[in-house]
């Protein structure tokens, strides 16, 4: 799944003064709990958000350990629950955990490639109280889909989409967007309309982990983006509230950073397959942080007291230009992982911001993408042995 921190849809509707005003307010509660059930996956998406050394995570939490996370999270006020991966359906306890979570009062979301989601398992998940399914699709035709994920699964995904609707689940169609598929925006919208999905999310790839390896090959051109947005606008007008269309632009083309995760340690808590607690799914990329683990510490301590969750909370950690910026409440200085990956220091402003003294790293990347002299490179697929992390100095 691509990182889409800018699309959290957390709103508090104020109507007391007679006008409607939308603001963000999480009260410091981890309202959003994401469970990365496994890093195993049948697909090989070259933009995968999982760690580069995903195959080293063998000691997945047991069913009982996940249940404890669910109980503790709910006690702290968690509401939205995402089962993701890797491919969560590779675990045989998803149905049991969904039922358990539903009983605890979570709104349960399954984020899946669809592989392994048989009609039988769908039926069991429906009975278990699963609320919605986010299905990933990478193209509107079989051939391109195959080329992008390394496996011939398009027909299977289409069948799964129909089964999901037949079971009466609300469905989000999630489409990771890159140079190779953005020109299919219209045909993907037609597909979504035909499938009668409630939401379609064009999630432009965000550049971390595997996506960062392939960044120059994936970055769409500004012209492609503008054309895609025009089509989205046309469909929004025509379909009204029948289908919600989200369009997350690649932040490299913005001049202000995304309010990533609505702030570090603010509303979002992710638990990795091995029990590592993360402020976001990519946080492991930041070197020098010792991430707590639910096998060793209580969830309450992890969220409220652990050094990692407090590292970039609030704005005390900020340096200039963020520190004195009048927009710091809105975007929290952008994404810590991106600041680290592109500037070497997670306390720097996200260089996507035009106020960042290192904004040139983003500008030169965009310029290089558009350059007629750029040398194309092959895509690196997410699979064991595709790369080695042996010589990297990294904490995980």
């Amino acid at each position, binding site marked *: 799944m691509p990182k889409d921190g800018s699309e959290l849809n957390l709103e508090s*509707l104020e109507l007391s003064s007679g006008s*409607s005003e939308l603001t963000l307010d999480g009260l410091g509660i981890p309202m959003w709990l994401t469970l990365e059930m496994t890093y195993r996956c049948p697909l090989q998406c070259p933009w995968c958000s999982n760690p580069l050394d995903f195959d080293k995570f063998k000691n997945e939490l047991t069913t009982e350990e996940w249940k404890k996370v669910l109980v503790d999270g709910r006690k*702290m*006020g968690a509401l939205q629950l995402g089962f993701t991966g890797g491919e969560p359906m590779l675990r045989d306890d998803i149905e049991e955990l969904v039922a358990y979570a539903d009983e605890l009062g979570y709104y349960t*979301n399954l984020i899946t490639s669809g592989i392994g989601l048989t009609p039988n398992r769908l039926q069991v998940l429906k009975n278990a109280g699963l609320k919605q399914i986010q299905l990933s699709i990478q193209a509107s035709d079989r051939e391109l889909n195959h080329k992008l994920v390394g496996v011939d699964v398009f027909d299977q995904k289409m069948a799964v989409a129909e089964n999901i609707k037949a079971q009466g689940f*609300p469905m*989000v169609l999630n489409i990771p967007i890159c140079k190779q598929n953005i020109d299919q925006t219209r045909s993907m919208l037609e597909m979504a309309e035909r499938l009668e999905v*409630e*939401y379609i999310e064009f999630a432009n790839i965000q550049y971390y982990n595997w996506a960062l390896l392939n960044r120059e090959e994936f970055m769409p051109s500004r012209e492609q983006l503008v054309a895609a947005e025009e089509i989205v606008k046309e469909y929004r007008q025509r379909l009204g*509230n029948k289908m919600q269309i989200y369009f997350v632009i690649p932040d490299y083309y913005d001049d202000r950073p995304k309010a990533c995760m609505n702030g570090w340690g603010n509303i979002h808590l992710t638990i990795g397959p091995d029990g590592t607690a993360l402020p976001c799914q990519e946080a492991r990329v930041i070197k020098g942080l010792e991430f707590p683990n639910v096998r060793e510490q209580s969830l309450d301590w992890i969220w409220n007291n652990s050094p990692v969750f407090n590292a970039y909370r609030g704005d005390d950690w900020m340096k200039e230009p963020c520190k004195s910026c009048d927009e710091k409440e809105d975007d929290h200085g952008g994404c810590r992982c991106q600041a680290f990956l592109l500037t070497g220091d997670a306390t720097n402003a996200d260089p996507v911001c035009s106020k960042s003294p290192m904004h040139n790293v983003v500008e030169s990347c965009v310029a290089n993408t558009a350059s007629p002299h750029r040398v194309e490179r092959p895509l690196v697929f997410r699979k064991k042995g595709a790369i080695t992390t042996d010589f990297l100095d990294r904490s995980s």
Partner: protein
Amino acid sequence: MVETITANNIVALAPMYLFRWEEPQQAYILLYPEGIVKLNETGAAILKYCDSTHTVEEIITKLSEIYTTDVSESVYKFLEVSYAKGWIRIKP
């Protein structure tokens, strides 16, 4: 895109939305795929009546019993926003 809500429309919460009181938040919330809305008191009071049995006019009457100010404009505004966001449906 925002359709006009009229006095005799019967409104209902859209099927995939969950509306309930949440103790840790001390607030009414609306849950939906990948979203949470925390409602203030007025918003919650209006949504409670979006149960496919009340017309907009009836909702205004009910709320007028609770609030002393003229609620009519607020109710229409809230329902129009809610409708545009897909939270509620108008019963055919």
